[in-house]
């Protein structure tokens, strides 16, 4: 078996955060005797990612996803445990590793705000020691994939959010990293831009065999790109396995959608399952898998239906339940 591209071994990070009460008295107390709180952002997280694998990294806000990414990219030093990317300790910032990894943050940008995108690319080409002719060739190739050939000479501040994110991806991938850490790369983008970014990441991965670890609040990103997901909650690993397995494990129910011929009260459907939507002609129920056949038969017998469909519940809902449950 090939050595893992990414390795997290009992990775933990604890932050000390100063706390202050509001008001004048709180300010005085804070000045005289500062109070700190220990925040265990990540607690003993372990996983391996094979070269070329795409893994979705899920968790609610504050779960420790970004802190884990920061440790894996060498931005912060783990309190304990071991991080390795391509066999190297990322905290040491060895050039050989830095030339092969990148971190894209949807809420932050490296582009130089007042200058055209090409200027940031020139700096990156120099920093990564890519001859400019080669950098131009790569820029053309990536810009075509991202469909932003026309905006590279415009100042960054004049670009739309979607164009900026695409340019950010271009700048982050100019050195053709083998390992990509992506933290909410589609944050705030409209549906078309989200689709374009997904398509691009897929194409990049296929073309260069890159390894991706991706966090996103948009389940569509995860579904489109990742076959495996890692779920963390309150700094602990909850699940690591195939995306389908997550649904199997945490959602022992199916989604039943009805279109009624005549409206019926929501309470009428409570005995069939969990009512997610009802009150008009449309009804959405979550029904336990063991009861599904019986429930469908009863619904057909008791209501006049225009349509009935049975499907897997939306991934968002499954994830929401995992987080609400908080444990495996």
């Amino acid at each position: 078996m090939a050595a893992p591209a990414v390795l997290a071994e009992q990775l933990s990070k604890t932050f000390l955060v100063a706390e202050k009460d509001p008001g004048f008295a709180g300010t005085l107390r804070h000045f005289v005797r500062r109070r700190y709180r220990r925040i265990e952002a990540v607690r003993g997280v372990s996983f391996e990612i094979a070269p070329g694998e795409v893994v979705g990294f899920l968790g609610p806000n504050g779960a420790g996803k970004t802190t884990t990414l920061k440790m894996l990219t060498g931005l912060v030093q783990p309190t304990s445990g071991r991080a390795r990317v391509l066999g190297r300790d990322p905290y040491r910032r060895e050039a050989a590793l830095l030339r092969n990894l990148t971190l894209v943050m949807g809420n932050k940008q490296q582009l130089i705000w007042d200058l055209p995108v090409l200027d940031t690319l020139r700096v990156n080409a120099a920093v990564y020691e890519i001859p400019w002719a080669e950098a131009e060739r790569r820029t053309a190739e990536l810009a075509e994939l991202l469909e932003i050939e026309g905006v590279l000479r415009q100042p960054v501040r004049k670009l739309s959010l979607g164009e900026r994110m695409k340019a950010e991806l271009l700048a982050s991938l100019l050195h053709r990293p083998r390992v990509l850490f992506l933290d909410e790369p589609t944050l705030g983008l409209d549906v078309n831009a989200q689709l374009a970014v997904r398509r691009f990441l897929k194409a990049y991965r296929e073309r260069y065999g890159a390894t991706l670890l991706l966090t996103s609040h948009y389940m569509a990103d995860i579904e489109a790109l990742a076959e495996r997901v890692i779920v963390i909650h309150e700094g602990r690993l909850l699940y690591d396995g195939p995306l389908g397995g997550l649904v199997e494990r945490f959602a022992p129910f199916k989604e039943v959608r009805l279109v009624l011929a005549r409206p019926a009260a929501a309470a009428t459907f409570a005995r069939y399952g969990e009512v997610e939507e009802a009150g008009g002609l449309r009804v959405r129920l979550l029904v336990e898998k063991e009861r599904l056949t019986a429930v469908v038969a009863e619904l057909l017998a008791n209501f006049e239906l225009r349509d009935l469909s049975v499907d897997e519940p939306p991934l968002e809902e499954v994830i929401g339940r995992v987080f609400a449950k908080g444990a495996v």
Partner: protein
Amino acid sequence: MLLAKVRTLLAVHFAYMLEYRAEIFFWILGGLAPFFFMAAWSEAARQGYTPYSPLEYARYFFAVFVARQLAIVWANWTFSDWVRSGKLSFYLLQPLDPMWRLLADHLGERGVRFPVLAVIGAVFAALFPGALVWPGWGALALGLAASALAFLLSFFVAYSVGLLAFWLEDATEIFELWYVLVLFFSGMLAPLSLYPEAVQRVLLWTPFPHLVYLPASYWSGLEPADARGFAVLLVWTLVFFAVTRLLWRLGRRRYSAMGA
């Protein structure tokens, strides 16, 4: 390869600073304080209280103004901002020490500052005929060398203060203390030859007089420049360079990449 990186960084940072040319112009105007001291000392000279003539004071304080302009730094502010905003994260991900970006930021700005200084020099020469005299190639080069060292030392001091952002919420103002010491002991207020001899002897071992007075002495010829200042500047520059390396190593452990 490092040279190629620095060259590109300089070109891009020059372009970046050019976007802020108006701001830089007003910043330079904010540094005209030596001309006020010049007016005061020239008046004292006219009344016969000091050993130099008004024209010599004009020459000296113009040299002080240029020396100050060439040594202006803001690494404390920029680096502190990088730490607090999390922008440092991007630079940590790249195989280049962030210090080089910071240095390129300053040197690129010098490219925008030079032409404005030239214009101010031309206006000054017109207003004070005979005040500016050619110091000779040797003195000009030695003054520039002293000025370059003074810039490097100021840069490392400011960068050290910026690095304190790993520990303190806002450390940038600590640099004001450095500025106050520079104001009083660098020759900005008055030529150091007018200070008591005991003070001059002590100051010789500090970096302050060599930051301004040394290059200004070469350019103005008011007093013979003390070449020992180069050694003192070099030692202090190396000391603060070592301090930046130490703070960088220790501080990185505390970096939480907040906001990123």
